[in-house]
């Protein structure tokens, strides 16, 4: 491998502190190569599958008879298949891949026990494949976020467990020194989620509880999947990428630590705000509403920190693809979380809960924030693993603008349509069909924005395949070994 040769050349040539650091970093990056690319590659495959399923479900809202002759393509199957394909097929493995790379870098240790991760990736993808097929074949459990049948979730649990064990092994073998805030987020995510997933499956699928307790467990799980799994991974990436790309430490490290611990404390209570007005003890829902509003604390710490770190460096968005996606995601995080806290307030919840506003909010969080941050992380990580630059800058630009405009359009359309729908549902003088008709044109716009996102994903997949195959011209040296690209001091010397 020419990477190895290059490292050897550097070793023989000189051993300044900078060279030693570079060699160490290169070795760590290289050690994560196979498992990370395996997770990323399969994630992108499921992203395309999930996008196609999403388009089918979206257009069925406007054209109910579209492809309704085949049972496996009816709305009731396509819609949960979409959710599970993007949540377990795309978002989770993509986050795991980024998490593996970050963990190795932040522990300053080359990846240990690669086989654990490869086994986890295999279990994972077999699980998701059987799960999606089961849903399309009509074996959905009809429990939101846990539609995969109980036998399939065992496979996913094994994968989660293996990754959790791997994270602990890496953490134990870390180089001494400070545990960076991203590592805290990753530890929380990778250790909480296997437990969360197992508990929810046990109480809902393996040994099901009865009655309305199922609803409480369902949303305890559903919201914590966002709060203690996707959110910490996304924030871990943002807390690493933003300072690293612009070369400036986090504005207030104190706030970042405060943000982490307050997130762990408050987020796990949030699920019950999905049950406002349901047959549940009042204290259960009230406590959750209070915790949801308290989420302003961790969210504001992140918002202030990321904004102040970026201040004076916003022009950097022009030249860094990673930064573009990450900052877009970080800003959306603030917006989505603030909206989430407001939606938990009962008066507002009453208007929006069973409308498209909720769908818009879900996409703003999981797509506008999480997926965009993960795209940003992938743009940073993959060239360092393959030793090859992204073949096409214009494909990256198309990817960014299609997805950024697409998700903005989707959010705005669903929010306006959903609000009109909510007012119509509230008014006893308006019949139900009218509320559907109010929302219909906005759902058409949502379908169009879905096409934009899907095209963006296909463009990204093409660029990803090209970088794996090392297509395109060789641009000098790959990012990793770029000869000390204009640091400030050098530029000043010039």
């Amino acid at each position, binding site marked *: 491998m020419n990477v190895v040769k290059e490292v050897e050349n550097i070793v023989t040539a000189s051993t300044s502190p900078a060279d030693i650091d570079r060699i160490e*970093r290169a070795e760590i990056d290289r050690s994560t190569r196979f498992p990370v690319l395996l997770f990323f590659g399969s994630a992108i495959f499921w992203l395309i599958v999930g996008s196609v399923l999403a388009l089918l479900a979206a257009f069925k809202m406007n054209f109910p008879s579209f492809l309704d002759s085949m049972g496996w393509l009816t709305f009731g199957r396509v819609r949960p298949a979409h959710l599970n394909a993007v949540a377990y097929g795309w978002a989770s493995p993509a986050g795991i891949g980024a998490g593996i790379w970050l963990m190795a870098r932040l522990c300053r240790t080359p990846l240990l026990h690669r086989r654990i991760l490869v086994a986890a990736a295999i279990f994972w993808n077999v699980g998701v494949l059987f799960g999606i097929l089961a849903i399309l074949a009509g074996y959905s459990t009809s429990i939101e976020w846990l539609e995969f049948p109980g036998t399939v979730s065992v496979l996913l649990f094994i994968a989660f467990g293996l990754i959790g064990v791997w994270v602990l092994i890496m953490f134990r073998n870390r180089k001494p020194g400070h545990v960076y805030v991203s590592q805290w987020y990753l530890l929380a995510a990778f250790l909480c989620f296997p437990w969360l997933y197992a508990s929810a499956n046990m109480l809902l699928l393996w040994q099901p509880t009865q009655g309305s307790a199922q609803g409480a467990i369902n949303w305890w799980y559903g919201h914590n999947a966002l709060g203690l799994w996707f959110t910490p991974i996304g924030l871990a990436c943002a807390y690493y990428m933003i300072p690293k790309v612009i*070369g400036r430490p986090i504005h207030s490290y104190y706030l970042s630590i405060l943000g982490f611990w307050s997130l762990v404390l408050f987020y796990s209570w949030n699920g019950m705000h999905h049950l406002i007005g349901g047959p549940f003890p009042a204290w259960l829902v009230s406590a959750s509403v209070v915790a949801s509003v308290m989420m302003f604390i961790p969210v504001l710490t992140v918002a202030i920190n990321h904004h102040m770190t970026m201040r004076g460096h916003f022009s950097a968005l022009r*030249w*860094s693809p990673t930064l573009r996606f990450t900052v877009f995601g970080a800003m959306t995080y603030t917006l989505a979380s603030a909206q989430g806290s407001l939606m938990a307030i009962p008066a507002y919840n009453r208007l929006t809960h069973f409308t498209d506003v909720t769908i818009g909010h879900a996409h703003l969080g999981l797509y506008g924030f999480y997926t965009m941050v993960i795209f940003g992380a992938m743009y*940073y990580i993959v060239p360092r693993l393959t030793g090859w630059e992204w073949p096409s800058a214009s494909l990256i630009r198309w990817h960014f603008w299609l997805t950024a405009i697409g998700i903005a359009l989707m959010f705005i359309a669903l929010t306006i349509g959903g609000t009109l729908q909510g007012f119509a549902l509230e008014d006893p003088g308006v019949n139900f069909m009218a509320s559907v008709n109010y929302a219909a044109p906005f759902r058409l716009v949502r379908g169009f924005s879905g096409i934009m996102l899907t095209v963006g994903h296909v463009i990204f997949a093409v660029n990803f395949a090209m970088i794996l195959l090392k297509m395109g011209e060789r641009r000098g040296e790959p990012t990793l070994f770029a000869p*000390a690209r204009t640091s400030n001091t050098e530029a000043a010397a010039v």
Partner: protein
Amino acid sequence: MIVPYLILLFGVVFMGLLGIAALCWAAKNGQFTNLNQSSRVIFDHDEPIGKPTDSFPEPRSRNAMQTFARASASAKAV
């Protein structure tokens, strides 16, 4: 039927204690002291503070990045 519930109850208590233990460990271990220094652990001699580490893969924007680096360096000097 009772066994899964006991496992779950144990799990809830265990995860809560684990969180508290992690917080105590971090405080004892000195993770909360010297925070300004701690935020710099992601930089090293090769990628020091002040060095941008990502750009669009093309000569044009690489130039743009250099211009940016120069501008921020001169701003610092002023």
